[in-house]
Every structure is written in structure tokens, then in C-alpha cells.
């Protein structure tokens, strides 16, 4: 018995190395998980709105997304109170110098993966306020932007179109 154990100890194992996973099976499993996740979690995105110096016109139209005509939540979007709960930052305004740090900190507090949507002509390049000593001019000057929705202000329909493109 000792001899046998010793032999086994010195011999390389008989077990074959693990095969590479089947590409096909993986794809199949992936699709299943994706479906289950989409069914359970929905195509859901949590949005945190940040006013970085807007004239409040853009906010009015973002608010309108909640009304019965647009009913944003049916698409799986909802607004959250904390950047820590957010997938998307929806940023308006020409980014005033006085709001710059607050925007940077909000971005830092948002967990990855995250998207930034700059709303309005102001959010794109400062709009009518571009060139002011008090404005940085455009959200992309401060944090990376994934999507711009132009307009002054963009209509709720334009906002919806932009947001749906994110899903």
C-alpha cells in the first residue's frame, strides 16, 4: 500500500486539463443571463440631475418628463436623490465657476459604470453664457460627457429621444 501511495505521489495526475469553454455554450448562457437580468432588473437607469448653473428652463422640461404625456418611468428611467444611487448624471447649465467643484464631487460620488448626459445648449458649450468670467462653459470642460442633448431648452421629446439612445 505504501508503495502504491508513493507511486501515485510521484506520478503526474491522470486528470486531463480543463477544456476551453465552448464558445457556443457561452453565448447561449450569456443570452440567458442577459434575458433574466433584463426581466428581473428591467432596462433600468437611475438618473441624478445636476443643475450646474442653468437658467432653470432646462429643469422645467426635465420635470415635464414625469407628466402623464411622457411618463419617463415606463422606459425604466427614474430620478434618484443621491449620486451614489445613480447610473446617469443629467447635467444642465454652462457650469458656473461656483458650481464646478460641486459637479466634480457629484461625479466622483457616482459609482462606475456611469454615463454623463449634458443637457441644453448651455451644457454643450455654455450657450448664451459662453465667454463669461463666471462660467466654465460646457459640461465636457469639467467631466467626461457621453451624450449631448442640445436645445434651449430641449423639449421633453428631445430629452426622451436622447435618453432612450442610452438604453
Amino acid at each position, binding site marked *: 500500500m505504501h508503495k502504491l501511495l508513493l507511486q501515485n505521489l510521484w506520478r503526474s495526475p491522470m486528470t486531463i486539463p480543463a477544456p476551453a469553454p465552448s464558445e457556443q455554450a457561452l453565448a447561449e448562457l450569456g443570452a440567458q443571463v442577459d434575458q433574466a437580468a433584463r426581466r428581473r432588473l428591467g432596462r433600468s437607469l437611475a438618473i441624478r440631475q445636476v443643475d450646474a*448653473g442653468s437658467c*432653470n*428652463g432646462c429643469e422645467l422640461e426635465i420635470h415635464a418628463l414625469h407628466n402623464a404625456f411622457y411618463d419617463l418611468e415606463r422606459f425604466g428611467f427614474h430620478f434618484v436623490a443621491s449620486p451614489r444611487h445613480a447610473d446617469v448624471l443629467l447635467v444642465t447649465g454652462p457650469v*458656473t465657476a461656483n458650481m464646478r467643484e460641486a459637479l466634480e464631487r457629484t461625479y466622483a460620488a457616482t459609482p462606475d459604470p456611469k454615463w454623463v448626459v449634458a443637457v441644453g445648449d448651455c451644457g454643450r458649450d455654455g450657450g448664451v453664457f459662453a465667454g463669461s468670467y*463666471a462660467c466654465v462653459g460646457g459640461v465636457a470642460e469639467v467631466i467626461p460627457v457621453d451624450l449631448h442633448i442640445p436645445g434651449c431648452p430641449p423639449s421633453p421629446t428631445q430629452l426622451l429621444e436622447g435618453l432612450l439612445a442610452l438604453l
Partner: protein
Amino acid sequence: MHAQSLQAILDAGQPVAAHRPWPRFVVTPDIWNTLIEGLADSAWTLLGLWGELGLVHLAVHEEGSGMLGVASLPCPAGCFPSVGRRHPPAQRLERTIADLVGLQPVDAPDIRPWLDHGRWPVRYPLGAATAPTTTMPPYRFLAVEGESLHQIPVGPVHAGIIEPGHFRFTANGEAVARLEQRLGYVHKGIESLLNGATLERAARLVGRVSGDSTVAYALAFARAAEAATETEVPARAHWLRALMAELERLANHCGDIGAICNDAAFALMLAHCAVLREQILRASAAGFGHRLLMDRVVPGGVAADLSVEGVSVLQSLVAEIRRQFPALVTLYDNTASLQDRTAKTGFVKPTLIRQFGCGGYVGRAGGRAFDARRTLGYPPYDVLKFEIPLRTDSDVNGRVWLRICEVEQSLSLIEQILQKLPSGPVRVALKTPGQPCESLALVEGFRGDILLWLRLNGDGTVARCHPRDPSWFQWPLLEAAIEGNIVADFPLCNKSFNGSYSGHDL
């Protein structure tokens, strides 16, 4: 009552040529001090306080006589006698003058910076602009002493879709002992951008001082530009402007009534009111081509005429709101749990309202019967029938009811305008002034009276423009309104005021 009339006091100064329609006087420090005493004695109301290189301007209104005037004090030494020392409503305006122009109020009780947070590449942007040489020390909030007090700092980024500002609550358990506001986060330097702007660009900028009041701001600017250049606007333009102004009032009132109820966790009202608001914006877009009516009121008239189809769209809008709104009013009135939250909450003393010359629904819910549409009677309000609703309860409930009554008035005004709309052109070209000219305009936005002072260069470009939002005299009263209320009622109180951050921060 003050011994002398405002007119008599101002007449002792040097009248300034070409300031319309109300006069401006260059005054001595003595006259300036007399004016301060009159303000402190409530003989007249502070309308505005602003500065430019070497000069401070004070706009006052005397209710009895209806006199409106501007006093300008030269400040060769870079300072002026503080108005805020005797008249608290001036304090934040003075701190702003110190920030933007660099003129110091002498003996002012509060000399902390207000809009300047130490983050601009320039100091005194409206004065002798210089690069900052020192970093600004951290802002000193008022000291809090006392046992068992705790502080709750909120903002600038708030938990909803609202504008940014900082609120420092000092609470004793649940009750708020003090609220201190810190604003200025959305300061965009609009006044500097206006310097040298063409009338067209300036109108676009002023129309974006506070997006929710874009019609009222554009109207204030247009009226000022027309007064300065002595341009007569066609009658139809006046009527279309009033139509837009009432649509804006209606949309904001409907939206806000719902939003206030939502802050008391009564979402049903918000859902219904938001639908009304959306219908108003859609009708506005159908009639004038922009949901919020931005850039529709322009110097010289209006940018877009209203078609026959537009008239009928607006007529059916009024009919639709008349059909839906009464049920919502009943719902508000009959929901005891909602009234429990709004009644007696956020009370503002009527004496404070008078002292601050607080306008809009906050002022009128606290018994101050000022509405620029009636008090000044600019066209076409001089020939339209409407009431100025007035209340004295001065709490959240009172402000909601005041706006409910104003919705009814605006509906009636829109009907009258649609019925009697005169025909004719809607826009004229503004005269080129040839030489510098100045003017003052005061118009009633949904939130209250907007003051706008304008100086044009001879070529018709803007030399200096100062728009003053009604929020300047409302924000401070919110600090008073929340005292003794529970922290959880702050959103309710705040929404019932709905001060503009952008309009205030400029």
C-alpha cells in the same frame, strides 16, 4: 409718514437727462441718508440697489403718490453710506455691489461676500476688474450657540430636480431654530455679458435670467429699451405680450400648485396639475412656436404673430382648464391631511412682507396689495378687467389659495385678450438713440415684480443693464418663514415661495 415727499427729496438732486419714464437724480450724501431714513421708516419701498464704476443707484417707490425714482450717489472714495444698516432688505444687495463693483457700504452690518465665492478669475467684474491676488477665506456662517442645537447643511446639490443653493439649518430636535441661506452658485455673470451687447443679444440674455419667467424678463427688457429710445409699440404687440405673460403665469401657477402638494406627499395633485401645465405649454408652442415662449417678446414688439388657428387653440385651452381645474381645487380643499400640512406652516409676518417690499404671491398672501399690472397699469392691463387677489393668512395654504385665485384671473384675462385682440402690425424697428439714454421698467412676472434698469449707448448697444428678480426680497423671508417649523416642512415652505436661484444669482 415721512415729513417730505419722495419727489421733494429727489428734486434737491441733479436730474439726469434722458432717463425714462421715471426720473433719475444724482444726489448728495445728505439726500442719500434722508432716503435711507425714509426707507427705514417705511415711507417708501426699496425697489432696487445696484452699482457701476464709481456710482451706486437706489430705486424707490412711494405708494401713496405712485412716485417712482432713482437716486444715484457718486462714490469717489469707493464707498457709500450703507442702506442695509438701517434697512435690512438692502443687505444682500449691498454685499453684491461690494462683490461685483467693489464699492464698499460704510458701516454695513454684514460685509461677507455674497455672490463671489472666490472662484472667479476676476474681482469686481463690473467695476475696476482686477485679477484676484489673495484666496478668499472660507465663508463664515453665523455663529450658533446654545445647548442641544445641531446643524444640518444641505446643498448646493439638492435631492431633487431643483436649482442649487446651500441651506444651513440649525435645529433644536425637529424644530428649526435658524435657517441661513448661502446663494450665488448659479451666478453666470449676466450683467457683464450684457455690457456692450446688441439689443438682440441682450434680449436673449435677459430672457434667460430665470427661464421660468422668460416672458416677464423679455417684457421688462423690451419695455425698458422702448422707453429709452422713445419707441411706440403697436397695440397688437402689447396685447400679445400680455397674452404670453398670462400663459406663463398660468403654466407656473398650475405646475407649482401641484408641486407644493407633492411636497406634502400628495402626488395626485401633482399628476393632474402637471397635465394642465403640459397642455398650456403645448398650446403656447402651437400659438407662438416655443413651449416656454422664449425670445417671443422682443424690443419693438413680438417675434411671432398669433394666427387665427392659434387663437382657437388658446380658446380651447382656456375651456379645457376651466373644465378640469375646479375639481382640483375641490380636491385640495377637501383633503384634510393635505391642509394639515399646509395651513399655519411657513407663516411670514405681514410687517416683514411690507418692510421687504415683498411682491408676488408671497407678498399678496401676506396682505401687500402690490401688482405692477395694476399699480402701474401698463398696457393693455389698463383696459382689462381683473382683480388682484389678496389674503392675510400668509402661510403655505394662503400662498396656494392666492395662486388658485390668480389662475382664475389669468384665465379671464386670456379670454378678454383673445376676444378684443386688436389687429395690425406686431413689431416696429427701434429708433437708434443717437446719444446715450436710460430707462427703468417694472413688470409683473408670475413670481412678483421684476425691475430692470437700462442704459444704452448712442449706437443702441447696451452700456449697462441691471435686472432685479423678485426673489431678492423673498429669499430672506423664507429664512423667517421656516423658523419654529419642523425640518421636514422645509421643502413645503420652500416650494410655496419658489424663489428663483438663477434670477437672484444672475
